[in-house]
């Protein structure tokens, strides 16, 4: 081949390749954004998270009604396609299903399962296959201390779970001492360890810190100890059944500190206790009256999913995960896993529960706000810019209610 002909051939090939380029891109456009998750529809977590399958569906339906999410690389809106399985509240089952979601279902993005133990197991699949994974209700540091690169978590680490409460206690300077009653399970113990340090940093004297088995039925020994030591704050770091049983017996044995703090005090806590739940402080991710992001959208999704916020107070964390997923895909403009993950790690947005960004290990910034049950309603009492009511302190004694 002579030189001019060779040049013509090379230049011609170049132009032909340019002409073919859009066609190739078109062939790579996915038909949908596949989002995978497991939900504990059965097993021990079913009562805490089972209905969230409906919440995921409500979110996907709502996005799809708007035509899907726009991704710049494909220059079009793509619908969301949800793939969910029941992990039966079991870590091994969750791990197996996340493996399947990645290898068989070919999902582009994963939402984590409920709880730290399940997330610990499930996230190994996403790490191995390099698929972005958004953990939601899993804040044990053990999950994030493994050096994983493909995980982010919406909520802050367990030891900081109640840091705003201790900020408030320090700022108010009314309480001087605290006694901890702790349920011996992963999350409550993690919260206790962090809270104890935070309480000391806030200038409080820790009079007792007793870790009790999760199935403790009779609290008389610790209640008698607390009555003797008389701390200003009795802080119960536990799941709800433990806290309800403790509060009942505290009333029966007339334990009247200046404040009860039960880290989980949702509707499932309030309803069995009735008026005895009044004045108890706890932690909320979001309560009506807070102005961040789009509360109406969240309430509308809850309504569609038939979920009562009081019964499922961690549902706002799911909404924030949806907001993070949408923002990450919007900013990345592609479903390329590496680009999506990098975008997510660099994200800074304001979600329903406030501003969120992620540390190097993936842990997020969303944290709870101290909220107090006042006449059967939940009121955020700190910080001032978010508060929906004033903090009532001290709590009236049982005899004066």
């Amino acid at each position, binding site marked *: 081949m002579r030189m001019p002909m060779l040049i013509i051939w090379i230049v011609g090939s170049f132009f032909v390749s340019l002409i073919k380029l859009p066609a190739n891109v078109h062939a790579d456009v996915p038909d949908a954004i596949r989002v995978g998750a497991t939900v504990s529809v*059965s097993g021990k977590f079913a*009562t805490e998270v*089972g209905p969230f399958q409906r919440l995921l569906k409500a979110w996907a339906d709502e996005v799809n009604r708007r035509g899907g999410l726009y991704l710049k690389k494909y220059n079009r809106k793509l619908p969301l396609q949800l793939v969910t399985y029941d992990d039966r509240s079991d870590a091994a089952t969750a791990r197996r299903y996340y493996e399947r979601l990645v290898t068989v279902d070919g999902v582009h993005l994963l939402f984590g399962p409920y709880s730290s133990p399940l997330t610990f197991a499930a996230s190994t699949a996403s790490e191995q296959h390099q698929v972005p994974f958004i953990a939601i209700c899993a804040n044990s540091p053990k999950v994030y201390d493994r050096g994983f690169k493909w995980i982010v978590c919406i909520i802050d680490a367990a030891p900081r779970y109640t840091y705003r409460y201790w900020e408030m206690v320090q700022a108010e300077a009314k309480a001087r001492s605290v006694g901890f009653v702790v349920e011996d399970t992963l999350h409550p113990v993690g919260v206790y360890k962090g809270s104890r340090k935070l309480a000391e940093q806030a200038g409080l004297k820790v009079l007792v810190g007793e870790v009790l088995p999760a199935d403790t039925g*009779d609290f*008389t020994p610790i209640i008698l100890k607390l009555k003797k030591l008389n701390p200003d704050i009795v802080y119960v770091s536990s799941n709800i059944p433990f806290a309800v049983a403790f509060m*009942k017996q505290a009333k029966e044995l*007339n334990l009247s500190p200046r404040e009860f703090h039960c880290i989980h005090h949702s509707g499932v806590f309030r*309803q*069995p206790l009735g008026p005895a739940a009044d004045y108890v402080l706890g932690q909320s991710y979001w309560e009506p009256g807070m102005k961040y992001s789009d509360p109406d959208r969240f309430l509308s999704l809850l309504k569609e999913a038939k979920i009562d916020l009081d019964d499922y107070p961690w549902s706002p964390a799911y909404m924030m995960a949806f907001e993070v997923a949408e923002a990450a895909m919007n900013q990345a403009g592609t479903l390329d896993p590496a680009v999506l993950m990098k975008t997510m790690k660099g994200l800074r947005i304001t979600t329903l529960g406030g501003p969120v960004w992620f540390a190097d290990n993936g842990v997020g910034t969303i944290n709870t706000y101290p909220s107090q049950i006042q006449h059967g309603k939940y009121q955020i009492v700190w910080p001032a810019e978010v508060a929906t009511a004033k903090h009532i302190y001290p709590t009236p004694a049982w005899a004066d209610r």
Partner: protein
Amino acid sequence: MDLASFTQLLLSGLLLGGIYAMVAVGLALCFGVLGLLNLAHGAFLVLAGFTYQAIHGLGLLGPLSGFLLIPLVFSGLGWLAYRLLLQNPLKRASEDFLAPALLITLGLAFILEEGTSLVWGRSVAGTISPFSSLQWGEFYIPGNRLLVLILMLAISGVLQFWLTHTDSGRRLRALAQDPIGATLVGVSLVRVTAVAFAVSTGLAAVAGLFYVTLFTVSPHLGLPLTLKALFIIVVSGSGSLTRPLVGGLALGTVETLLAPPLGAHWANTLTIVLLLAFLCYRPEGLFVMRPSVGHK
């Protein structure tokens, strides 16, 4: 520990024992007397607790009518469960009820647990007691716990009277001692065991109603409660319906008194060690006289 704390702990332990005994007495009727281990006992208890909370929450029944009606309904459920699930397998087993009953009631326990979880869709049920605490000097006696203890004394007495002084009770004991012999003299295996199972389920419901006011119940609490009741029966010995009361009181007191010096974890561990020790060295129970073995 000062005397006042010790006295309050002792009182609380005894009162806690009352509810333990109430949980155990229904199981003792089936297992201790009849040899039929009902692993769904705790699941029935939990279901009764959730039912009471729902009815109470809706304002459909007052506390008293709820406490009367729910055990009756649960007795009917127990009777139905027996006729539908246990009757035929147990007839075939004729002498040894234990193995088939174990498998069937374990399945029933899982169905009841998942059903409770599915229907209520929440993790916990509990209500505040309608009775306030009694104050005696510096001591507090929770009214509902005191009522449980008094009621438990009455239930134990009535059940023991039924077993020893009525025809139906005697038929039950005859069946327990020698099923084939009892059947040959006209005792109806099906009818007697169905009645025992129904009464046992009704007692589980009574325990559930009190349990939900004293503590909380969650759908998966059934099997642990059944095991606790089994522990009381093993320790106190089978064959009598007053023994669970003594066993329950002993367990409640030991647990409560050991918690401060040992810690709650060790108190629970010690309970399990005691169970193993009883199974190994005194399987007939603490309060049963050993037959004297004379030298010939």
